[in-house]
């Protein structure tokens, strides 16, 4: 219903107020609230007068923009281009020809309320409607967001796999670069285990430092992403969050991968006879 | 500051060779050549005013203690380094101020280099190593393969063409390196401690090869500590502290 109304919103601006005939019912223009996107697109500000109707090309009620509101952080709304208007219920019922009907009731309960029992009672006496818990509805309607989440997770997994390959590749190359040094150490009598331990420790230090830098970069990128998309979609929704859990996960994973790459790279070399490493 | 060249007359006189270097223009001519290096904060004077001539067909051994500037001198003659001052001429052509491109081309066609550590490309066979300079000189594949095989036969490795350096002994590798140095028929063959990594017996084989090359007309300049190699040459040039000294 709201959508139907939105499809027919006509914005005439304050200059046409003088020419718009007042309806028999409306003497004092009532106020509406519009969202930020509509305000930006139609260049409206608080105090502007507009005409609102259910059908395009018809003269509707003259109303005043009483407030510009920011939408809630609803991920399912983000990609939609809806323009939202809040009106007094009786006015929209009249304009849209809805009569004494609504699409839904929203019920706020007391903290001590037994919600499941309440829903059950309502459904037993309800005639023509059903009661649901809000969060169950939210789950149903956030399928879009779930798809995006799954997609992100898949990209994340692919990125981790790709990073592991890159890391292993570069680690093998860099360790191989030092094969003469390693060969010299082995010829001196340094054990394989000591050589591997020292390389792995080096890899671990690099992994820790890299993780710290990565976390800082990720946090900065997260700030930027939120700033950009919140402005783009005019929503307070947080698109990216760096939580302690994600930091711990990222650091642990990079440490594990870094050490594993170091182990693989060093084992390859210590298993080769030192003289062969010298190229003889 | 330049000292005159004092040749070791012993062997040359025994053979009845010329002792004077001035009947025809020399193949190598250095005049008051200096070479300085920066080594950390210090300045090292590797060569301090060297004047030297090498005649066509000569076989010269440059000898001296470690760090006296022998290899530096050889590098200047081989146009892989440039003097700080002074002039270097090879076959009548000034080489001390050549651009990198000119110097590279000159080396390709006129100089053959033999190194102490052979420096064969391990990924190529003996034949391919010898053919490499000819490929660079745009010699056709058929011709360079044939010539490379001929050179390997000349150095006594006709049956080792397909072997990689890792499959050859030190002496064999050095012989391949000598064949490679001869690939483009150079005016001058330069060798830096060619027997340095070889045992006495193998070293003797190389010395003998150098003598044969020289007898066949190749002008050779070697840098060496090896007394046997130095003795096999026609002329010795003694270097000390970057200067040529009297024998």
């Amino acid at each position, binding site marked *: 219903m709201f959508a139907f109304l939105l499809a027919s919103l006509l914005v005439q601006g304050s200059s046409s107020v003088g020419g718009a005939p007042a309806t028999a019912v409306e003497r004092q223009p009532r106020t509406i609230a519009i969202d930020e996107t509509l305000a930006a697109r139609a260049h409206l500000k608080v105090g502007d007068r507009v005409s609102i109707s259910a059908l395009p090309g018809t003269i509707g009620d003259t109303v005043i923009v009483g407030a510009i509101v920011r939408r809630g952080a609803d991920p399912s709304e983000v990609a939609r281009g809806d323009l939202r208007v809040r009106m007094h219920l009786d006015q929209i019922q009249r304009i849209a020809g809805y009569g004494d009907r609504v699409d839904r009731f929203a019920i706020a309960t007391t903290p001590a309320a037994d919600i499941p029992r309440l829903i059950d009672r309502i459904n037993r006496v309800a005639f023509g409607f059903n009661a649901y818990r809000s969060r169950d509805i939210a789950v149903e309607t956030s399928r*879009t967001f779930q*798809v995006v989440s799954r997609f992100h997770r898949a990209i994340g997994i692919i990125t981790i796999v790709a990073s592991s*390959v890159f890391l292993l590749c*570069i680690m093998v190359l860099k360790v191989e*670069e030092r094969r003469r040094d390693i060969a010299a150490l082995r010829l001196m009598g340094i054990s394989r285990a000591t050589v591997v331990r020292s390389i792995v420790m080096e890899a671990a230090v690099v992994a820790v430092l890299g993780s710290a830098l990565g976390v800082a970069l990720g946090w900065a990128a997260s700030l930027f992403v939120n700033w950009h998309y919140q402005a783009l979609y005019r929503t307070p929704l947080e698109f990216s969050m760096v939580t302690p859990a994600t930091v711990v996960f990222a650091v642990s994973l990079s440490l594990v991968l870094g050490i594993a790459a170091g182990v693989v790279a060093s084992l390859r070399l210590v298993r080769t006879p030192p003289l062969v490493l010298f190229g003889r | 500051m330049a000292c005159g060249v004092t040749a070791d007359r012993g062997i040359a006189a025994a053979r009845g060779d010329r002792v004077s270097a001035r009947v025809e223009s020399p193949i190598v001519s250095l005049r008051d050549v200096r070479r300085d290096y920066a080594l950390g904060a210090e300045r090292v004077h590797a060569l301090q005013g060297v004047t030297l001539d090498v005649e066509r067909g000569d076989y010269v051994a440059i000898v001296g203690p470690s760090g006296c500037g022998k290899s530096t001198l050889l590098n200047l003659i081989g146009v892989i380094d440039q003097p700080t001052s002074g002039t270097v001429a090879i076959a009548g052509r000034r080489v001390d101020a050549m651009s990198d491109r000119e110097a590279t081309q000159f080396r390709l066609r006129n100089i053959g280099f033999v190194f102490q550590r052979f420096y064969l490309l391990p990924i190529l066979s003996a034949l391919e190593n010898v053919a490499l300079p000819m*490929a*660079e000189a745009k010699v056709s594949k058929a011709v360079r393969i044939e010539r490379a095989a001929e050179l390997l036969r000349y150095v006594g490795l006709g049956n080792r063409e397909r072997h990689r350096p890792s499959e050859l002994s030190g002496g064999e590798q050095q012989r391949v390196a000598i064949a490679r140095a001869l690939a483009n028929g150079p005016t001058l063959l330069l060798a830096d401690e060619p027997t340095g990594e070889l045992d006495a017996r193998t070293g003797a084989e190389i010395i003998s090869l150098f003598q044969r090359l020289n007898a066949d007309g190749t002008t050779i300049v070697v840098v060496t500590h090896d007394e046997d190699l130095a003795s096999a040459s026609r002329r010795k040039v003694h270097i000390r502290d970057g200067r040529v000294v009297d024998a």
Partner: protein
Amino acid sequence: MRAALAQASLIRHRARTVLAVLGVAVAAAMLLDMVMLATGMRESFRELLLSRGFEIRLAPKGTLPFDTDATIPGVGAITATLRANPDIREISPVLGASIHILAGNRDVSGSALGIDPSVQGDYELLSGRDVTTPDAIVANDHLLSQLGARVGDTLSVAAGYDPQTRTYSGQRKLVVTGRARFIYGAADQSSSAMRRETLEAMGGQARDRASLFMVRVRKGANAEQVRDWIDKQLPNVTAISIATAIAQVDERLSYFRQLALILGAVSLFVGFLLVTTLVTVSVNERAGEIAVMRAIGVSRSHVVEQIVLEGVAISFGGAVLGLALGLVTARYLNTILSAFPGLPMAIDFFLFQPKAAWSALGLLIASGIGAGIYPAWRAASLPIAESLRREAIA
């Protein structure tokens, strides 16, 4: 000779070469996927819109087709107005509605399109007959399987349901005359089509109304000009050309394009980094060899060429492997995104377009060349005598 040297060098360090190729392959796969993502939706959507040849769509003012329940009144008058333009060849008014099909004591909900079968562009008939009679209905396989129905069965179909009185309105018996694939339908959507007059009659109130008009222009006509004309003639509807529709969808899904751009750039950078690292390590190891090659007269540019060839070979091998890998991952990712509610089945987020793909992979190979040039040039430019001395000491 240079190619042979490059090949021999790569074979010499097999493990390293394999790892590098694998690394570049992963970068290439990601780059390819991101290129497919960046252009896929738009092209896939364009192909979908053009699939039946209707270049312009008319929707209720301010909306996109079927974005809302709004309808356009005066189908007859609008059709007459449109026919006045000689550039307009065909007009297909479409009415959309929800229907309820009573199957025993079950109520199966679905969507219905009221169309004119002679000009419709919403579905492809897979078997049976089209809706040539007023009591005919065609349905998709999803709806038929929900109902357990087949072609030839009679269905009790209602257009409205009053939850208060729990009664159905606009009921009618319709015969399933055919199975259809609804081009714009989502995978899990129960879709059907009947004649527009039938759906209008069932709907009761909504007479002479349409949810959407699809307009086909004459061959050679300028669709944008026709769209502008319609805008002027019919101010109460929104005329959307394919370009406008794509632009609007682009705007809504711009996030994926931006993600594609960022991840694509990162992939390219990582591929570049890998090849640079490999070439650098390779030339550092071979400093002596390079100095000797220079000493025996091989020119600097030829040395660089040989080294760069190694980088190119790795990039090329990685690109080929990455192409296969990328197509597999793209299919997997596309399956995830295809679950978007309401997304037409025919839309692919990841669309393989040869030109874009080859450009991307070409870019990767070019970056492989670039990655090898600097370290190779530096190595080939080192003073020969210095390098030889350092090698002798080492």
